[in-house]
C-alpha cells in the first residue's frame, strides 16, 4: 500500500499525506485530532534525551523524595521505601500499581527506546523492531511520573502540619524526568518507521 494516504486514528477520515516541516502539526479535517507532528530531533538527539531520562530515573528512585524531622529524628524516604512500606502495611495491590506506573512503565519506555535508537545511531537496523514499537505503544499509556511529582508536592505540604518536612533530591530528579519524558513523547518515535523502510 502506498504511503501517500493517512487515516485519522480517531475517526478514519482519509487524508492525503505530505511530509511536515518541524513544529508543523497536521490535524484531522473532520474531528480535529492530531494526525502527525513535524519532528526536528535526529536519532542522536532522541538518543541523548533517552540516556538523560535513564540517568534521571536512576537518581529519582534511589535518592529520597522527601525528608521529615521530628524531635531530632530524621526520616528520609525514597520512592522504593514508600512502596515497600505500603506493601508491608498490607496494601499490596496499591503498592504494585504505584510501582508499575511510576517506576516500571517509565523504565520500560526508556529501555525500549534505547534498544531501538542505539543500533540506529550506529547505522544498523534494530532487532525485534516491530515488537519493541508495539510494546512502546502499550507502555506509554501507563506512565504516570508527572502525577507522582504533583503527589510528592502535595505530600510535603500535608505532613508540614505534623513535622518540618523538606523535598529531597529525588523530587528534583522526578521533575527533570517528567520534563525529559514529555520531550520524548512530543518528539515521537513512529516516524522512524519511514527512515527504516
Amino acid at each position, binding site marked *: 500500500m502506498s504511503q501517500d494516504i493517512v*487515516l485519522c486514528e*480517531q475517526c478514519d*477520515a482519509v487524508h492525503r499525506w505530505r511530509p511536515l516541516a518541524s513544529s508543523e502539526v497536521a490535524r484531522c*479535517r*473532520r474531528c480535529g485530532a492530531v494526525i502527525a507532528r513535524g519532528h526536528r530531533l535526529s536519532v542522536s538527539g532522541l538518543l541523548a534525551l533517552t540516556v538523560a531520562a535513564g540517568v534521571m530515573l536512576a537518581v529519582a528512585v534511589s535518592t529520597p523524595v522527601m525528608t521529615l524531622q521530628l524531635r531530632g529524628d530524621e*526520616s528520609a*524516604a525514597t520512592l522504593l*521505601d514508600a512502596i515497600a512500606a505500603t506493601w508491608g502495611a498490607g496494601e499490596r495491590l*496499591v503498592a504494585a500499581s504505584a510501582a508499575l506506573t511510576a517506576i516500571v512503565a517509565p523504565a520500560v519506555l526508556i529501555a525500549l527506546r534505547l534498544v531501538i535508537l542505539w543500533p540506529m545511531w550506529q547505522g544498523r537496523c534494530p532487532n525485534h523492531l516491530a515488537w519493541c514499537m508495539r510494546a512502546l505503544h502499550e507502555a506509554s499509556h501507563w506512565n504516570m511520573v508527572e502525577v507522582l511529582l504533583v503527589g510528592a508536592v502535595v505530600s510535603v505540604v500535608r505532613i508540614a502540619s505534623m513535622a518540618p518536612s523538606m523535598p529531597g533530591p529525588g523530587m528534583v530528579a522526578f521533575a527533570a524526568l517528567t520534563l525529559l519524558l514529555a520531550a520524548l513523547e512530543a518528539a515521537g518515535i513512529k516516524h522512524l518507521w519511514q527512515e527504516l*523502510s
Partner: protein
Amino acid sequence: MTGDAPARPLLSCRCCGLVSRNPHAACDAVASCRCPRCGHPLHPRQPGSLQKTWAYLAASVMLYVPANVLPIMSTTNFFRQDTYTIVGGIAELWIEASWVLAVIVFTASIAVPLLKIGALALLAWSVRYAPHWRRVERARLYRVVEAVGHWSMLDVYVVVLLSGVVHFGRLASVHPEPGLLAFGAVVVLTMLASRSFDPRLIWQEPRADG
C-alpha cells in the same frame, strides 16, 4: 481531501500508522488481520468496544462508593489517631490554607473521576441513540477524557509517599487504609473504560455495521 472510507477498504494501524488494504472489505466480515509492518492487530472497529466500555464503567461506579466512604489513610500523631477519607484530606488542605493544592486534589480526586464516568456514559449512549448529535464536540470530549484520566492517581501516590516517610511509631505515623485500594481500582477501571471505547464509533453511520 477528506472523506469517509465507506466500506472500510482501508485499515490504519493504531500502533505504527501504516495504511493497509482490508482483505475482508468485500465480504464485510469482522475478521481481523495484522499490520504487515509492525504486527499490531488491525480491526475496522475495536471488537466489543461498547460492551467493554459499559462493563468497566459499571464496575467503576460500584467501587466509587467504597472509594469515597471508606478511609484511604490513617495517621497517628502523639497518640491521637485520625482517619481520612478523600474528602477529609481535601478539607484538611483547605483548612491549612493550601488553597491551590486543595483545588488541585479536588479536581484530580473528585471532579475528574465523576466527569470521566459521566462523559464516557454519554459517549457510549450517544453512539446508539444520538449518532448525529454534536459529533465534533463528542470527539473532542473523548480526547479530553483520554488526556486527564490518569491524574486521579494523585491521591494514591500521596498516601504511598506519606506511609513511606512518616514512621516514628506512636509519635507520628501514616498507614494506608482499604479505601485506597477501591479508589485506585476506580482510576484503573475508568482508564480501561476510556481505552476500550473506540472513538471511530462517533462517526459511524447508524445501521452501517450494527
